[in-house]
């Protein structure tokens, strides 16, 4: 492991950083939006939709993320009808498939977290809100959800890091993220230990920065309780 090699590898690896970061934030954002919608459906008990959300959670938390990515990217090629449909430009795009898999995966785990947090809000909060003349929906969106989401924040922080680590799997469907460049560089140079150690270091720095951001967010969101 010499300095010159590191200086040679580093810029090549950093080229993948953009894809990794873009995909992380896009998946987190769409996953969060879906998770909030799903939580609402579960808490308000919209009958047919509730059943759908529960099935989605079972499917996406019960199978490996890599299988989900393969199923979404390679699966549609089996059906002629899909290839001629208007969806094909999207489904043949690895970036979109990766985003879809990561977002749905994150949505499933996040919904579980949020639903747990909502269930953990004391019944008295509901009763007080209803006693003040709020409707069930008002109580939920104004009192219960803001409180529950704050409580779920530490666990959601973990989920954010899991999604960032999860993006490393998209190199298997031809996307060139950080892991993709590390893999290519390894195949070209056979300098395995240096290449993967460098890539690992970059991932660790990202995890570290994310942990710090999450801690700041927690401090802000839970400031009232300290």
């Amino acid at each position, binding site marked *: 492991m010499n300095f010159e090699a590191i200086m040679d590898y580093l810029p090549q690896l950093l080229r993948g950083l953009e894809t990794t970061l873009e995909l992380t934030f896009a998946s987190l954002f769409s996953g969060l939006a879906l998770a909030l919608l799903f939580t609402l459906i579960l808490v308000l008990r919209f009958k047919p939709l509730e059943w759908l959300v529960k099935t989605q959670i079972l499917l996406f938390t019960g199978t490996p993320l890599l*299988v989900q990515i*393969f199923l979404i990217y*390679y699966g549609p*090629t089996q059906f002629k009808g899909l290839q001629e449909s208007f969806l094909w430009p999207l489904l043949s795009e690895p970036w979109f498939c990766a985003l879809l898999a990561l977002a749905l995966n994150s949505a499933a785990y996040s919904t579980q977290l949020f639903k747990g947090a909502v269930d953990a809000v004391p019944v008295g909060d509901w009763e007080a809100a209803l006693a003040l003349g709020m409707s069930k929906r008002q109580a939920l969106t104004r009192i219960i959800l803001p409180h529950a989401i704050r409580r779920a924040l530490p666990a959601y922080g973990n989920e954010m890091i899991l999604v960032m680590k999860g993006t490393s799997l998209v190199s298997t469907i031809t996307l060139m993220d950080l892991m993709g460049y590390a893999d290519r560089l390894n195949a070209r140079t056979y300098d395995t*230990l240096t290449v993967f150690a460098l890539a690992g270091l970059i*991932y660790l720095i990202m995890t570290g920065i994310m942990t710090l951001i999450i801690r700041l967010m927690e401090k802000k969101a839970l400031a009232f309780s300290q």
Partner: protein
Amino acid sequence: MAVLFFNATLMTLGLALSSLILGLILASVFALLELGRFRTLRYLTTTLVMVLRGLPEILVVFFIYFGSSHAIFMLTDEYVEVSPFTAGTIALGLIYGAYASQTLRGALMAVHKGQLESAKALGINARRSFIKIVLPQALRHALPGLGNQWLVLLKDTALVALIGTTELLHQAQMLSSKTFEPFTWYSVAAVIYLIITIISQRLLNNMKAKASQHERVVTA
């Protein structure tokens, strides 16, 4: 086909179980080192656990698989290939060990101090009170966490497909490229993972119920 998937399922289960055993051993070692009295070892273990938890799992698998051959080559000038199964077990065991050590450490610390003091007052020596009094209670605290990490480990075995062990995902990959029916085969793999997960959850719930049957429910 059924035979192929049956064998692949056995491979997935074998991989998961051997990683679990290695992982539990590593977790105990990590937890004891982190709670131990040697400061350098404590810091080293904390750093190792932090690194393992901060890295993408696939990177750890690749690092162990490709890196071990590379390291052996550098040390001995001989090219030795480490089998994907061994490399996968070591990588997944290390990851499981890192997460589980935190659960174990928390569980050990959650056992009330008074328990050890009473044992000491009763004249039970340190080793015996650890094994007979602290450990059973700690394991009860740790069970839910260890169980969740088993479910994560089960899903992480799919990563070993990428280094060429014929477990469920790799089997599905091979059949997909042969028959051009990727949706069918990846779905079959997904369903088998789902079944194993659901059975695991059932077993874990039974274990939890059994472990807590002695607990008194205290009502205010």
